[in-house]
């Protein structure tokens, strides 16, 4: 990426925030319509004592669920990559279940696993697991048949093929799944927290809405976005290092 493009991007961001701040002040917009960026920052800073523990809780739930889901997703995909007949039966069912939005079974998770961290971790693991599983399986099964033939001509068996060819060939799609999953993990955590919890940014947002405290809502969104962006950035950076041949 060249410098001009980066500069334009920064310019765009500055313009957006400037225009936001300006129009809020100039038109004297009420807070429920749009609070100014400066006000959001000030609220986040002054409310940090309450926001930080909430943020820590949300990050903890999202990260643990993400780790569990990622391992399960890749593991299951590798298993199904070895078993073609099982895949033909299972995959359409997985796709069907996956088309139900998260929001629909979040209440179920709360009823089953309570309003603590466990229900959020399980929800995140479930969603991340699905996303990573589908991406990984796609990568594992869409390998050039000629490359498979070549390795077989060297005497490679199924496990050898999986380890030496399929898995590295699937890394780009696995990485894509892992990258998409970062944002989803945060969304699922927030959504489940909104429905029921004792601590967390989603809960903060829900409470603030009920109390009609708009600045607090925006402040919590800001903090959640920062976590989400960091998470996404770290995973993207790792992806670029691991999948260097892309």
């Amino acid at each position, binding site marked *: 990426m060249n410098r001009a493009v980066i500069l334009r991007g920064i310019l765009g961001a500055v313009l957006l925030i400037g225009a936001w701040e300006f129009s809020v002040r100039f038109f004297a917009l009420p807070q429920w319509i749009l609070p100014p960026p400066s006000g959001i920052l000030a609220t986040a800073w002054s409310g940090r004592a309450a926001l930080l523990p909430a943020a820590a809780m949300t990050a903890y739930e999202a990260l643990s669920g993400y780790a569990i889901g990622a391992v399960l997703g890749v593991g299951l995909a590798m298993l199904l990559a070895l078993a073609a007949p099982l895949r033909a039966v299972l995959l359409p069912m997985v796709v069907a279940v996956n088309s139900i939005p998260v929001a629909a079974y979040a209440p179920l998770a709360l009823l089953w696993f309570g309003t603590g961290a466990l229900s959020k971790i399980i929800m995140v693991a479930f969603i991340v697991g699905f996303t990573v599983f589908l991406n990984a399986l796609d990568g594992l099964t869409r390998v*050039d048949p*000629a490359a498979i033939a070549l*390795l*077989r*001509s*060297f*005497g490679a068996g199924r496990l*050898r093929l999986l380890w*030496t060819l399929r898995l*590295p060939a699937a890394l780009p799609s696995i990485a894509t799944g892992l990258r998409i999953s970062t944002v989803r993990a945060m969304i699922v955590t927030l959504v489940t927290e909104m429905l029921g919890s004792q601590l967390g940014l989603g809960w903060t947002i829900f409470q603030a809405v009920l109390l009609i405290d708009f600045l607090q809502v925006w402040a919590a969104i800001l903090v959640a976005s920062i976590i989400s962006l960091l998470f996404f950035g770290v995973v993207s950076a790792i992806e670029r290092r691991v999948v260097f041949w892309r």
Partner: protein
Amino acid sequence: MTATKLSISGVGKNFGAVRALDRVDLDIAPGEFVTLIGPSGCGKSTLFNMLAGLLEPDAGGTILLDGKPGKLLGRTAFMPQRDLLLPWRNVLDNALLPCEIEGLPRAETRARAEKMAVDFGLRGFEKHFPQQLSGGMRQRVALMRTFMFERDLMLLDEPFGALDALTRSMMQRWLLDIWARYRRTIIFITHDIDEAIFLADRVVVMSARPGRIKLDRRIELPRPRDAHLLTAPEFTAIKRELLDAVEEESLKSFSA
């Protein structure tokens, strides 16, 4: 040692309703360099796939390697039409792939590969990745990978097909050099008659689909061979003879 390295008799292949390969009979002696030429789609790659054990011949055909029947998978060194280098492995690791699959001791094969890389003109590029190489180099890595898989019979499917004419003629001379040094039996598919004659002890011409052997011509030109051979009268005579056979089949494959 048996007198024939490879003995193919009555080998045919159907793909559903398509008769790709008719009945092929061919015997190849140890250390021989045989080039295989024929119109596109006549079943050359199909024959190779069967020799490599990736595909079963239809009933009635037999393939004997070293005079014995049996599983062929992993017994010939096969180089497919595309280089199929793995983008996440560097040059040396790509060349080491077959040894790794065989489970040979790593340090030993590595030392051997480092020595071989010099012969293959890859010195200094061992740590490069395929994306960083030219077409000719990629092909040399693919060839080196095939040589690292130490099997007496090598099956090379149009290894130089994608190269420009200059690089190609350099690679041909270089391959003959390597072959003289390593003494393996080679079957080499090509679409280029000059290449077929220049390299071979024997040129085998296949007919249009369904493929069968149309002509089996021994090439008694002296070795080592150099670029001047291409304009020698005895070369041109052989070329004319082969061209007639190949043209006839190519026309057939178009009108079919």
